[in-house]
């Protein structure tokens, strides 16, 4: 059976051009980037080239980037590294667990700013949450479930005026919308390799020049003493290659994905009754999140998977079962509507033919599932 992948916000496949630079590195670049010999120097050289490539994508100096193991570590390092005892932190209710669960562990006061049904935070709400003790504001750049783009530049301006540090989780933004961390005015910015066609296990944190940050891990003096542990040179090189491709092609790819996403969204809205789009504008081009009334999202995901389509619903708990999305409930959906929602996230592998096949599969599965749903029958 052909498999069509529509879950690029969960992870992206490694692209051909990334693979082509990654495999030779794995085969040939074996040195430790901290070693003084030639083998180490070659590794160091590749690592620093990669850092420049990622810096070019994000609009910062290479020196301002710390390579880490992924988005979660970047978020942990940014937040644990920036806060101190007795301080206050502001974040939003729609953040990724890599931020929300860190906040829950801090043992300091945290304000979770609410967002409206559009799924975009109001900078004035952030401003109103500021206290004299506020040390850090952490707001994601693009939401992973509904794709909405947050007004990071405005919030960063508010933070700067108040003398507060600003972190943004940019895992879903980098390479998908133009990102220039310097122009955004943030102090800290997280990115992840496997959301941009590089492998799992590598990410980076932008740390504005001059910012003091406490390390999360203690060990050797790697990454300017900000992240102990032998550098993941193959991962960094892959991420660098991925960043270069996106710096060049990201914009045209985003336009192509917007066309596919609109085709998918319109197709489903026309073919399936009682469907609505979750969240509002602005949002990134490759994401749509749809509520299909009277349908268990979990059943739909399985039914579509058995037909060869990978999509998602809610978030997976530790066993792998699905729990309703905290993001959808934060933008005002009832538990039932959140459970009836599906996320489709598009990427480089998707084509018009795939989108049309997906529309057919969604329409067929929705009709079948609604026949079995007494609630829906009663509703219409």
């Amino acid at each position, binding site marked *: 059976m052909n498999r069509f992948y529509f879950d690029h916000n969960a992870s992206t496949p490694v692209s051909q051009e990334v693979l082509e630079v990654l495999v030779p590195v794995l085969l040939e670049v074996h040195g430790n980037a901290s070693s003084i010999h030639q083998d180490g120097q070659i590794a160091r050289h590749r690592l620093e080239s990669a850092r420049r490539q990622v810096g070019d994508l994000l609009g910062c100096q290479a020196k301002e980037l710390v390579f880490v193991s992924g988005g979660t570590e970047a978020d942990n390092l940014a937040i644990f590294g920036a806060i101190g005892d007795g301080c206050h932190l502001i974040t939003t209710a729609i953040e990724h667990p890599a931020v929300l669960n860190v906040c829950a562990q801090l043992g300091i006061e945290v304000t979770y700013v609410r967002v409206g049904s559009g799924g975009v935070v109001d900078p004035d709400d952030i401003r109103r949450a500021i206290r004299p003790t506020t040390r850090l504001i952490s707001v994601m750049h693009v939401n992973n479930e509904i794709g909405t783009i947050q007004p990071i530049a405005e919030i960063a301006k508010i933070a700067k005026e108040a003398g507060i540090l600003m972190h943004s989780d940019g895992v879903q933004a980098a390479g998908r919308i133009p990102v220039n961390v310097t122009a955004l005015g943030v102090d800290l910015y997280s990115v992840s390799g496997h959301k941009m066609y590089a492998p799992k296990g590598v990410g980076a944190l932008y740390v504005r020049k001059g910012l003091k940050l406490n390390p999360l891990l203690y060990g050797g003096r790697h990454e300017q003493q900000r992240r102990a542990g032998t550098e993941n040179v193959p991962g960094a090189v892959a991420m660098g290659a991925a960043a270069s491709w996106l710096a060049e092609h990201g914009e045209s790819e985003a336009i192509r994905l917007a066309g596919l996403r609109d085709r998918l969204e319109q197709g489903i809205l026309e073919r399936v009754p009682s469907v609505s789009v979750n969240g509002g504008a602005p949002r990134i081009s490759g994401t749509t999140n749809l509520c299909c009334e009277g349908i*268990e999202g*979990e*059943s739909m995901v*399985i*039914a579509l*998977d*058995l037909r060869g389509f990978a999509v998602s619903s809610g978030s997976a*708990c*530790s*066993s*792998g*079962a*699905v*729990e309703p999305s905290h993001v959808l409930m934060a933008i005002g959906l009832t538990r039932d509507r959140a459970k009836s929602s599906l996320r489709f996230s598009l990427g480089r592998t998707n084509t018009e033919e795939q989108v049309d096949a997906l529309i057919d599969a969604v329409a067929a599965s929705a009709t*079948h*599932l609604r026949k*079995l749903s007494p609630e829906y029958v009663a509703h219409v």
Partner: protein
Amino acid sequence: MSKGLLAVAMSGGVDSSVVAGMMRREGREVVGLTMQLWNQRRLPEIQTDKATGRCCSLDDVYDARQVAQHIGIPYYVVNFEERFEEQVVKPFVDEYLAGRTPIPCTLCNNFIKFDQFLEMAEGVGAEQIATGHYARITRDEHTGRWQMRRSVDSSKDQTYFLFGLQQEQLARTLFPLGGLTKPVVRQLARDLGLPVAEKGDSQEICFVPNGDYAQFIDAYFRERGIPTAEVRGEIVNREGKVLGEHTGVHHFTVGQRKGLGIAAREPLYVIGTEPMTQRVMVGGNGDLLRASLAAHDVNWISISPITAPIRAQVKIRNKHAAAQATLSPGSDPSHVHVRFDEPQRAVTPGQGAVFYNGDLVLGGGWIEN
């Protein structure tokens, strides 16, 4: 037999793993589903180190996933926690508080496994389901009625918990293990190379650690902020004389001897509970004998509802040896009067009364107060 997609309910144990493996070997297209029923991280104060043998532990999900991968079938974990709490856990607690002794496994079969699970299976495209229950489904060729029979392995027979199954549920269900004995099933697990072949059997009520249901109910109350002091009461004898005090009727079940904390010449047993007054009645062994019972919400499986008295064997709890009795129709088909040939010990309200004719499961209902 229809050869469409078959959904196998996989718990991560030996039995359901063998079902998945057998069906796959027979050439069926199989999807494995594990029901996430209960969050084992809840009620941390009653958790034990031993997390195996209980449903929905991460170890069991891990095992089920391994088995699915081994036999090469798609596999998913589906979240039924809300429904399970509503249809099984809450009624279980409420029944104890009402002075009855519930059977959560029957509620789970009626409302989860053969209802929501069946619906979910159909939703994902499976017309039939298979489970690892030890019971057999046959069809009466004359009437077209689906019938249920005891498992050939009498020590594993689970028909006592399946008396609520309806015809349309039986029509879409397979019990591939009903004709096999447990040692044969284990051997099949080894033959199929299943990673769970040597895993121990689970015994207890899946969501109650150590089988201590009273402790579970206390913890469940505390989670809701209800003080257990409100459920204290008196222990009385048949004449109403107060012999002691207790910390809640849910600690007692009919026939129980331990935990009364009363010194007496003759052994004392719980003969009944009175939730209205929070009183627990105790008496001698002879006080536990009953010659008859009334069953409500009776479901008829292998025969149509009776209109005249019939002879049957009746089981009043899972480990009870079915006793000879006469069944008489009650005021409507959902009520049945059972008169035993010999009085039976500890007829317990809330338990099932399941009617048999030899191997055949005629039907069953719930024992009234």
